[in-house]
């Protein structure tokens, strides 16, 4: 991490600020989702900015996005996750995000109500705005790499 964990510019549409969370850059526990090291901070912010720009949001205002490079989805996380999740942040508070896999990994004994997977409508929205193809939508929907 650099000395300033916040991106210098806000998002284009909503002017959201974005924080590069140390927890998701190796500073958390081994079970915390981590961005891949070869993804630049600018690319991480670009994923967030695209999510906001295209309004890829669920009912709770959480944002989601992918990074499409020449038609193929790039891995965003160290567990080969290809979708990023950005939890809703109150007005004035910087957002943060992390890669999330399309499969619910929550074990029964520690299930706490969070599904840890994007809703189906998110993938439909990603396809609608042209960020993924129908093939990629169906792969991700099934919990497969796209």
């Amino acid at each position, binding site marked *: 991490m650099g000395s300033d964990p916040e991106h210098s510019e806000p998002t284009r549409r909503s002017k959201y600020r974005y924080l590069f969370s140390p927890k998701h850059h190796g500073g958390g526990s*081994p079970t915390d989702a981590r961005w891949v090291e070869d993804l630049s901070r600018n690319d991480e912010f670009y994923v967030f900015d695209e999510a906001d720009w295209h309004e890829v949001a669920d009912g709770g205002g959480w944002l989601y996005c992918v990074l499409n490079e020449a*038609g*193929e*989805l790039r891995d965003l996380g160290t*567990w*080969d996750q290809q979708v990023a999740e950005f939890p809703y942040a109150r007005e004035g508070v910087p957002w943060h995000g992390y890669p999330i*896999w*399309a*499969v*619910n*990994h*929550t*074990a*029964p*004994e520690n*299930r706490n109500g969070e*599904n840890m*997977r994007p809703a*189906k409508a998110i993938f439909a929205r990603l396809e609608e705005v042209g960020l993924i*193809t*129908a*093939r990629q939508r*169906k*792969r991700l*929907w*099934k*919990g*497969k*790499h*796209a």
Partner: protein
Amino acid sequence: MTEITPRQFEDFEVSCAVGVGTDAFCLGIEDGGIRFFNERWEPIFGMKQAVMSGEAINGVAVLGQFVAATSRDDVWIWTLPRDGGKKVFGAHFPVGAHGIITSTNGYFVAPLGLQGMMLCKPKEGEAHGVTITGGNPQVYVYWVVSQQAPDGQHLLACALRRQGVGVLDFADGEGNKTLHTKTFSGLDVVDLCTVGPRDHSASAVAMGRDGTLILFDDIREAVNPPTIKFKSVEGTAYRVLSAGGYLFVLTSKALHAISGLLDGFGKGQPPQQESPILTIPMEAVDAEVAHDRWVLVTMPSGILVLDIAKLKEAEKPDKPRWDRRTATTLSPKWHSGSVQSIDRNGALQDAMSATN
């Protein structure tokens, strides 16, 4: 192409397609349902909600009167009536899976990603005992195949993404097991398939996400398995399948049928360097072999059914669509390891009945 028959379905969107029994088929549906068809593709049975989450079905497997269906959010095992009745009983396990298979010794086995694997030997009239096998250190189980070696040993071979390939001696009963792993730097194993009759073979092919093929004559023993790549296999690799003497590779750009590569496989002979390859460009979602006769390709709309017998006819020398391609041999530095399994036992929850 005469070997391919497209099938469209007006009232539902297919998410996966598998063969069941000796000649039937089952389609998973995007809204969580499943539909069974006979060998003439006439509908014979269906369940509107095979997983109650309503998520897209990503795997279906059948053991006797038990039907298992999986999605990225849940696993369900249904007990079908023996007497022709319409009431089915379901048991639920609330964790996402990448699919499900049957093992050579009568288990349902579902790869659960970071959770490991779910192992369940269903019993009629009882709560289904279930074992979750994770690893220490943690491994990511993305796909699994089951096979019985010629010496009788039951094996589970796993695609472990960046942790490579894992092999587990899968005997009946409980007790910790050791997952033996093999990988090399940069490898991302997304699929593997058995080669030969799965009840009498320890041969397998694993595939990296970039299309790299790893050929295991005996997956238990290989130290430096032949590792090759065909330059013409482009895009993101999704599936590797073996049937009828062919190796099928599905990528984000095409379905490739590779002929002759597996000749001599399981007999200690090196793979052929040059193979005829038929490349069929397509934007496919998934693929599966059914009854050693068909390749069922799930498309964004409907499925394609590839007849392997007709493919053999099309491979005759006067047919121009097959190109001879030379594989590049890779010489990676393999690393072996072992992961101790951690079993957690429980019963499938929330037994319920449903009429479909």
